[in-house]
């Protein structure tokens, strides 16, 4: 296996992009990444596209060749492959691309992630999102994704003494950072009271605990690390790329207050990179729900089970603290275009490691982590990224 580097990143604005089509945002992100990498389209030998549900959102399947086509590359007859893993589609697409370059099968590949969610009304968005839970044994009985995470939250509070306000801090921090990100869906700041008093979705979770449905796309260009300097002055090495899976339904997990797929993926990633959680300065963590991010802080190894609440309330996990999370604004404020999330998380860490994050910059960021979940944690993806010096 050879070392793999990220040579370029691209990202569209996230939000309600009613005037822009799926294909437009898909190619915008891809071209931006290629341009950064000083590569031409001819240098690319494959496209991996993360997307959860284009068939349901825009009634269009077979979207990988569609994006390839509108990028002007249909004539090159490259393999263009769509990857689906619920909300983790983007990070799993990156994982596939990473393996392709690491193995030597391809030299330069584009990884895209894109979702066009706001063409359908909100209730339809919710139903489509729920399809990443088990339709036969969860949603058919009245479960929704937020209600399943609410069940997790209640049990976490019961077993580990976590308080409502502990996970309510996460969206507050997300909006604080989102206010500094011109690409973010939401750029307003919010208070802890606003989270606690938000209209209820599934108690204890309110509307401010839940990330929005957004349109958006992000892209990366990957290539072998040994030639990376020819294409960029600031290559970022993928120190680890790990995917782990678990039961589809929450009810079949050994312990609902632990996403074991995250524990497994994180352990494998740190082992592979010969690093530990204390080496990480900046992380993008899957905060589709506030509780999912709090639990991830524990499952990734930053805190023991039940101890993340303390880290949050004492300001260790904060911009300017020991560990900065979701400097992009996270899924909550930057936005949640399902397939694009895992790719955009990596793009933000690349900005941090290059020192290009402007007023969101974490000083001295050397090792970054991304964490992308599908459903209630049936898929978990962890990437470790390092400045290649």
């Amino acid at each position, binding site marked *: 296996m050879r070392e793999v580097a990220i040579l370029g990143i691209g990202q569209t604005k996230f939000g309600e992009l009613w005037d822009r089509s799926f294909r437009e945002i898909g190619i915008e992100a891809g071209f931006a990444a290629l341009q950064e990498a000083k590569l031409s389209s001819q240098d690319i030998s494959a496209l991996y596209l993360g997307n959860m549900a284009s068939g349901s959102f825009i009634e269009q399947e077979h979207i990988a060749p569609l994006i390839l086509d509108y990028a002007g590359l249909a004539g090159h007859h490259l393999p263009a492959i769509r990857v689906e893993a619920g909300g983790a589609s983007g990070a799993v697409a990156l994982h596939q691309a990473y393996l392709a370059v690491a193995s030597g099968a391809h030299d330069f590949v584009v990884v895209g992630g894109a979702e066009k969610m706001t063409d359908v009304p909100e*209730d339809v968005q*919710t*139903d489509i999102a*729920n399809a990443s839970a088990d*339709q*036969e*044994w*969860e*949603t*058919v*009985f*009245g*479960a*929704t994704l*937020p*209600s*399943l995470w*609410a*069940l*997790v*939250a*209640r*049990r976490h509070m*019961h077993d580990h003494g976590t308080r409502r306000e502990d996970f309510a801090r996460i969206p507050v921090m997300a909006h604080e950072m989102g206010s500094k990100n011109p690409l973010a869906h939401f750029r307003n700041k919010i208070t802890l009271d606003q989270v606690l008093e938000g*209209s*209820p*979705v*599934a*108690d*204890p*979770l309110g509307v401010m605990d839940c990330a929005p449905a957004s349109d958006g796309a992000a892209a990366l260009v990957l290539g072998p690390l040994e030639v990376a300097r020819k294409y960029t002055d600031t290559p970022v090495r993928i120190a680890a790329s790990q995917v782990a899976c678990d039961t589809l*339904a*929450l*009810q*079949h997990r050994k312990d*609902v207050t632990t996403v074991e797929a995250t524990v497994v993926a994180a352990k494998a990633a740190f082992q592979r990179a010969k690093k530990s959680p204390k080496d990480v300065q900046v992380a993008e963590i899957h905060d589709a729900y506030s509780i999912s991010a709090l639990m991830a802080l524990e499952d990734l190894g930053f805190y023991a089970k039940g101890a993340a609440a303390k880290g949050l309330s004492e300001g260790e996990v904060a911009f300017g603290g020991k560990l900065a999370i979701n400097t992009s604004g996270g899924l909550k404020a930057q936005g949640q275009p399902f397939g694009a999330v895992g790719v955009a998380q990596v793009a933000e860490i690349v900005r941090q490691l290059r020192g290009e994050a402007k007023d969101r910059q974490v000083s001295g960021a050397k090792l970054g982590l991304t964490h992308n979940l599908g459903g209630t944690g049936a898929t978990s993806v962890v990437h470790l990224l390092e400045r290649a010096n």
Partner: protein
Amino acid sequence: MTVARFWRETPRRYNLGGNRCSACTTVYFPPRAVCPTCQKHRQSLGKMEPFTLSGDGEVFSFTLVHEAAEGFEMQVPYVLALIKTTEGPLLTGQIVDISHEEVHIGMRVRAAFRKLREDGRAGVIHYGYKFSPARENGGREAVASPVSQEALARAAARTQGTART
């Protein structure tokens, strides 16, 4: 959900028909083709035995749902819970026949056969299990009982395709 898709699972959703690994005796609901926990993982293929849950259990976690799943819009707010069944498996279902303020972790419940949802005014009505508070000493008439033991046995047999009565 389409008619055929729902109909296929009615023995499970109506009668709590699960199965059990003949090697390690772990109970599964819904039934599984192989035992995921058993050391003899592959050997359990074809050796899973039908096993019907009693419907008894306790609340493991719960939430009051305000933004409904498709087809449940008319029921909001409703209590959704994870139920730890006496036999082991965790089930996802609604808790009914009790004010949501009274629901708590550890509360004893019993499965009830209820209408789950309907596909619009003229659409198919879906039935299955919900849970209601278990009452002591013959208080079962206050709670809709699932179905008779005979019916459960027949359903289990049908599920396995071993006998028809």
